[in-house]
């Protein structure tokens, strides 16, 4: 982008007047990028950024962690998970604490690390804690392909794989949460930007896909502010929900170098081969139709009981993570925030993850006077 052009957009964002706008960044990586860029400091008070449900760890229910803990403590079983998952509190304890009790939970950087582990210890069952959005589902599809190809039978997946798109739809149903959405960048690489068209058509709100650097974010927030005003006027004119043409131009892809309209078709077909969509429980949002990816029947021998998790929307007393992921409250409005919940000793999942809104706000708080 032209530096002068960027400069003008920064000026606009600093000085914008008029009706207040609430813009939601769905994805935790965007939340982190926004704080890193310092862009919140320069925004006019009429533009408020709110964080959404876009951290897979934050929306994984406590019962899932408990199930992982059970496996970690079972004889000849090992849980393989990403680092963030170790610290998420279950009902009583985190996997990190389970590990201190002698449970076997190993941190991985890539799901493919399980292949060699499994081959080197064929008598041990390795349970992969498969948590993530569309971004990571294709990797698990490729892992299954390898397991089948190499005839490895001592690996199973405990899946908490979710589609971010229905969650955005759920938030759209509550009209006053956000005026526009900064769509998850990595998810969109897989899904394509066209998946937001039906949402734009139905709710008459803008969806902007963007990258993560300061320039990307500045541009995206500028465009979202502009489109949100247009969309709001259109909704007031009574065009809402009555015609497809009303949403024309409300989906904008600014991340063309990585995201196409149709997305990564090969990744999508790999996903479809091994996984099917069904209802799944989101911490905070409840069960959402067709928002979970489960192993198809013919691959169930690789499943570690992902469909049998107890329905569970439990939260620690007073914890407002559920409202935080919906964008209903700011992290600082939670009574536990910074009092009995902090990154070193988290009560709720949003404080744990590097992409959780509470953790990010806590880490950045004093520099921003929030």
């Amino acid at each position, binding site marked *: 982008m032209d530096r002068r052009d960027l400069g003008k957009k*920064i000026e606009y964002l600093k000085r914008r007047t008029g009706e207040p706008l609430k813009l939601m960044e769905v994805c935790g*990586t965007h939340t982190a990028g926004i*704080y*890193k*860029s*310092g*862009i*919140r*400091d*320069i925004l006019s008070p009429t533009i408020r950024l709110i964080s959404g449900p876009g951290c897979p760890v934050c929306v994984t229910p406590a019962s899932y962690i408990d199930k992982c803990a059970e496996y970690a403590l079972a004889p000849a079983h090992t849980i393989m998970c990403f*680092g*963030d998952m*170790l*610290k998420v509190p279950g009902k009583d304890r985190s996997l990190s604490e389970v590990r201190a009790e002698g449970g076997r939970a*190993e*941190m991985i*950087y*890539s799901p493919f*690390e399980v292949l*060699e*582990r499994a081959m*080197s*210890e064929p008598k041990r069952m390795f349970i992969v804690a498969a948590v993530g959005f569309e971004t990571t589902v294709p990797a698990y599809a490729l892992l299954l392909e390898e397991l089948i190809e190499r005839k490895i039978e001592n690996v199973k997946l405990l899946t908490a794989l979710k589609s971010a798109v229905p969650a955005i739809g759920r938030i759209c149903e509550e009209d006053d949460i956000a005026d526009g959405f900064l769509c998850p960048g990595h998810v969109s690489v897989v899904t394509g930007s066209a998946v937001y068209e039906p949402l734009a058509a139905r709710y008459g709100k803008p969806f902007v896909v963007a990258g*993560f650097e*300061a320039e990307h974010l*500045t541009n995206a927030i500028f465009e979202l502010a502009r489109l949100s005003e247009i969309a709001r006027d259109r909704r007031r004119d009574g065009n809402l929900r009555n015609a497809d043409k009303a949403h024309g131009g409300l989906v904008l892809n600014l991340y063309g170098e990585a995201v196409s309209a149709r997305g990564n078709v090969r990744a999508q077909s790999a996903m479809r081969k091994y996984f099917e969509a069904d209802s799944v429980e989101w911490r905070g949002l409840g069960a959402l139709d067709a928002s979970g990816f489960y192993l198809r029947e013919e691959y169930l021998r690789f499943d570690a009981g992902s469909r049998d998790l107890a329905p569970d929307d439990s939260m620690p007393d007073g914890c407002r993570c559920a409202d935080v992921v919906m964008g209903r409250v700011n992290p600082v409005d939670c009574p536990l925030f910074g009092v009995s919940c902090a*990154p*070193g000793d988290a009560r709720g999942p949003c404080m744990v993850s*590097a992409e959780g809104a509470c953790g990010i706000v806590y*880490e*950045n*708080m*004093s*520099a*921003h*006077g929030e």
Partner: protein
Amino acid sequence: MKENAKKITQAHGAGGRDSAELMRDVFGKHFSNNILDKLEDGAVLPWNVAARPVVSTDSFVVKPIEFRGGDIGKLSVCGTVNDLLMMGAIPKYLTCGFVLEEGLEIATLERVVASMAATARAAGVLIVAGDTKVIESSAKANEGGGGLLIGASGIGSLRDGATPSASNARPGDAVVVSGNLGDHHACILSARMGIENDIASDCAILRETTDSLLDNGIDVHVMRDVTRGGLGTVLNEIAALSDVTVELSEIDIPVNAGVAAFCGVMGLDPLYMGNEGKMIAIVPKEQAARAVNLMRATDTGRNARVIGEILLPSERDRNLVAMKTKVGGTRRINALFGEGLPRIC
């Protein structure tokens, strides 16, 4: 059996004939010097009584043992010697303890020992005492077993009049970094994840760079090597110990393009990545330009630059480390929190 396929067994740690062979053929061969060769229980060191001794100790557990730009042996000397240098000491002597895992190839061990000896020679230090133990392999099978851990201690003599300390940063000082951030960490992570790229560890002795500052009359208030935890963590420690705030400028932070791209893909931040051949010097603002020029004339300081300044403690957040961002906002820089990163040093 071919020489290079020989592996470490428990017998090498039992103190008998195999131990003696290992001492003679590997350690003695490379580390030989007048003090070590006496083979006493302790080393008696020549010492100029006027200078105060400075002692530092460190442990090295990096995996892989050998990486682009270095190995655990070179790293153990660099890490220990650099710590002494940061105190304003002239490094003199090193001791080292080797913990070998069964299954380690003796050829690998010898490469590490040779590299350690060469690094020590280049740094002007003598390895005067050592120990070796053999333990069962604790490594996960996918890491290949046969690991090697090193503990090292160093002794140096404090330079006359030098008193750099992490509690000496003063408002009005400039923060100078000796070069690009994140190389070592990105190199180790790449190796561990099987990612092929050209990123090499910056593992190096910083003596030339520290000498250039201290020999030329720069009033160095603080020196710190920017190792584990990265620049963000080091500056938070200094801010707290000196009771000041620090303000960095994002556009001035030097990062190699390849490392920046790697960090972008991996979601890592060079501010929190470990280095093994980078330091910061905090000096009076009036001397900053000269300090940068002096550092740039050395191999380990070629990309030195001023990256920020020291300010009075702020009212709201006494020892804040903050960074002016490219879009004109402010970002808080915290110390690195928690785990999640592999062992890199």
